[in-house]
């Protein structure tokens, strides 16, 4: 009797599990057909599938879709696809006219730009006018808006931007005016050779004044409260969720180029989950972090992209106002030369990164004759164990110490921790008398410690904001926001200043000045110790074509993407 009850229960469990398995069975056939279809189709590109749907993943949610407030990669990537500015990076990553009709008229002194706007509409059908740009830029520079990129991008280039950001002038005094509905005039403080690429940056996109004012506080709080003028529109985003869609925007001026109908995006923070979703056929592309890059090294669908982002050690010479061992240039040089970068990128990172002996990345900035800035300036500070050991010994002698203990402040991601562990071991082995302590903290905490200059060595990275070496070169001028490490060299400052000022109209001399500045920064002063230039690996289904990766602004353009061979 007792037995029978238990067997009854057991069989209930069995029936239940069978039922669940059966349910799953249905799913099974569904997805597997999808996957086989995907791998079979390897027809030549150009044949479009009838269903133009792209399934993507992001690693973080959207913090805000307000163009003036955004500062993160996810939002910038969406802006690049649902909005558009005067210029847009094309398939070759060159800024080409978008909302601007042709190249602008530039005054002889290089200080006044006059853009003609093409006829284009917002997603609600109203035209995009020059005033939308004026409004947007003024909104971003207004200190009351608290835009992180507004002053950052405009100050020092656009007339009065610096004063407005400081609260000394009204936003309406910004050097941008709508001559008429289709003509925009921009006044610059100094010639900006890279102004066109700047115009492709989301901060310089237009915003629809009527719409923003009407929505008030609700503006940009979800996809209902947004308006678009790019290739796609954002839909199904509730403001805090982990999912959204991009739908083809019929009002877009170049809508006929756009092939994709829908892009489904889901936020997946766990790298392992992302890879599993890709393998199940649910997603068309998955970025590969650290360990996964290694595992899929031989996968035929692997795409490797070199990013113009450089990682380096910031060597803080004054921690909390007190000078430390890093004040000594020999110690700094020893550290910069004291670790094997090749092994790091080959084994630890293994994601297509390059060892960096420079600050300005390779394949990023080109001069008039199309020569890479890197070819001009070469390798500046390389790994050399013996030299490093000598320099370190000299440094310690000069300081009169027997041993040095330094802390490396790093990120708390798996990759960052691994890398820091490797670097610690390298430095301690190569530099006798050095002890490294590692400290991994969340990004927000690191920012604060950086702000307070409460660290010895910090692993930091920098990606460009526009296509010019200057976006890297001027990072460490005396007193700059990135230079929270008490580095100061008048010679370097002067070179940066001249490249920004009097040399702005002389490209060759300007290039030379920037090259010189980089030399001083790395070779002479070892103010920072470059580590690597980041590579990115992703798995991408072969039927996905035409996703363009950009070096700055939004990471990707889907405008030219299409699905071919999935069916």
């Amino acid at each position, binding site marked *: *009797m*007792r037995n*029978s*009850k*238990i067997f009854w*229960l057991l069989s209930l*469990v069995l029936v239940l599990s069978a039922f*669940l*398995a059966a*349910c*799953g*069975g249905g*799913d*099974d056939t569904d*997805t597997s057909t999808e996957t086989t279809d995907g791998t079979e189709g390897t027809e030549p590109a150009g044949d479009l599938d009838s269903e133009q749907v792209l399934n993507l993943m992001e690693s*973080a*949610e959207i*913090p*805000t879709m307000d163009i003036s*407030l955004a*500062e993160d990669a996810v939002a910038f990537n969406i802006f690049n696809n649902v909005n558009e500015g005067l210029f847009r990076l094309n398939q070759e990553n060159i800024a080409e006219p978008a909302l601007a009709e042709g190249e602008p008229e530039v005054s002889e002194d290089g200080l006044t730009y006059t853009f003609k706007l093409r006829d284009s509409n917002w997603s609600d059908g109203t035209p995009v006018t020059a005033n939308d740009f004026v409004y947007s830029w003024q909104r971003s520079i207004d*200190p009351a808006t*608290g*835009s*992180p990129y507004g*002053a*950052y991008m405009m*100050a020092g280039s656009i007339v009065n931007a610096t004063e407005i*950001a*400081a*609260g000394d002038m009204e936003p309406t005094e910004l050097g941008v005016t709508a001559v008429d509905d289709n003509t925009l005039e921009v006044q610059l403080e100094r010639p900006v050779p890279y102004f066109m690429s700047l115009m492709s940056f989301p901060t310089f996109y237009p915003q629809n004044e009527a719409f923003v004012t009407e929505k008030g506080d609700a503006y940009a*709080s979800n996809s209902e409260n947004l308006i678009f003028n790019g290739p796609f529109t954002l839909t199904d985003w509730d*403001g*805090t*969720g*982990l*999912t959204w869609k991009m739908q083809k925007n019929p009002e877009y001026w170049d809508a006929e180029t756009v092939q994709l109908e829908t892009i489904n995006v*889901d*936020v*997946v*923070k*766990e790298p*392992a*989950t992302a890879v*599993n*979703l890709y*393998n*199940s056929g*649910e997603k068309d592309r998955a970025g590969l972090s650290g360990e996964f890059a290694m595992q899929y090294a031989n996968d035929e669908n692997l795409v490797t992209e070199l990013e113009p982002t450089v990682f380096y050690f910031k060597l803080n010479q004054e921690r909390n106002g007190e000078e430390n061992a890093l004040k000594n240039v020999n110690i700094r040089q020893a550290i910069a030369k004291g670790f094997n970068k090749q092994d790091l990128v080959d084994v630890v990172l293994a994601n297509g990164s390059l060892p960096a002996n420079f600050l300005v990345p390779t394949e990023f900035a080109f001069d008039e004759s199309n020569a890479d800035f890197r070819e001009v300036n070469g390798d500046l500070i390389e790994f050399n164990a013996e030299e490093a050991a000598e320099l370190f010994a000299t440094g310690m002698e000069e300081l009169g110490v027997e041993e040095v203990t330094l802390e490396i402040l790093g990120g708390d991601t798996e990759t960052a921790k691994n890398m820091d562990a490797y670097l610690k071991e390298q430095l301690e082995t190569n530099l006798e008398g050095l002890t490294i302590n590692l400290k991994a*903290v*969340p990004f*927000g*905490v690191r*920012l*604060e*410690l*950086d*702000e307070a200059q409460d660290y010895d060595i910090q692993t930091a990275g920098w990606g460009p904001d526009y296509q010019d070496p200057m976006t890297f070169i001027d990072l460490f001028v005396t007193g700059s*926001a*990135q230079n929270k490490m008490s580095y100061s060299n008048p010679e370097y400052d002067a070179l940066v200043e001249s490249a920004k000022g009097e040399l702005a109209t002389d490209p060759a001399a300007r290039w030379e000045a920037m090259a010189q500045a980089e030399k001083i920064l790395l070779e002479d002063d070892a103010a920072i110790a470059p580590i690597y230039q980041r590579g990115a690996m992703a798995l991408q289904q072969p039927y996905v074509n035409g996703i363009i990766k950009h070096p700055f602004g939004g990471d990707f353009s889907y405008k030219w993407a299409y699905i071919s061979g999935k069916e």
Partner: protein
Amino acid sequence: MAKYIGKRLIYMVITLALIATFTFFLMKVLPGSPVASADKLSPEQRAVVEARYGLNDPLPVQYFNYMFGLVQGDLGISINQFKGAEVTDVILSRMGPSAQIGFQGMVLGTVLGILLGMIAALRQNTWVDYTSTFVAIVGISIPSFVFASLLQYWFGLKWDLFPVALWKDGFMSSVLPSVALAMFPLATAARFIRTEMIEVLGSDYITLAKAKGASGSEIAFKHAFRNALIPLVTVLGPMAVSILTGSLVVEQIFAIPGIGEQFVKSIIVSDFSIIMGTTIFFSVFLILIILLVDILYGVIDPRIRLSGGKS
């Protein structure tokens, strides 16, 4: 009873007020800047932003503003994670999925755990017993993130029985996360029920029931099971906590738009208002569970007098 519950509710409010105070001041000593992108804002801009969120007010003013808002159900505004969003809205929008997988996991775990424990007790010291003990111990021995990713890999990817991740296919999406969350309740319930059942089965009144000729199943279910169930209520609290903790991990692995996942993120980006709001939300949940357990305990077991307890 009503009087007891009323008293408990008052205590609850006081407790919550103290927790809110505690977290509020904790946030003030937490490292990290309350305003994101501090490195890009000029001091003037920063001052404007801080003024907007009332971060420049003297601490007592900030505190009273916060407490005043709290009374009205206003948990403040997110500054970093979702710029300008109401924390209350954020939590509400993320509550559904968490509640669903949490509830399913709890029910599934408890029911299976009870079954497992009962079978083990009735078949004490046989292979059935050993197997169920083994399952129970393994259940609490494997970290939830390992278990969850194994589930995802095998049941999601390899055997394709359930969605790998994401919150798109309704109930089917919730199965694997619920199972992952169920492991702790399952193991706890199984161990608990087994011990209690064995004790009850050896007690005098079972012997009496046997002597009176009650059948095996009657003894197992009518007498032993019911009495063994009572103490299980006491572990509901720890189980609820485990579900909370588990949700952080499980939601992240299965990419579920829940509170736990969002809480981890808010820590990473130092969004103090969300950290604080979520802490208070979790606390309310936990205190309610504790209250519920105490009330349930009194209802189920008449021997416990609620108002008493002290000698």
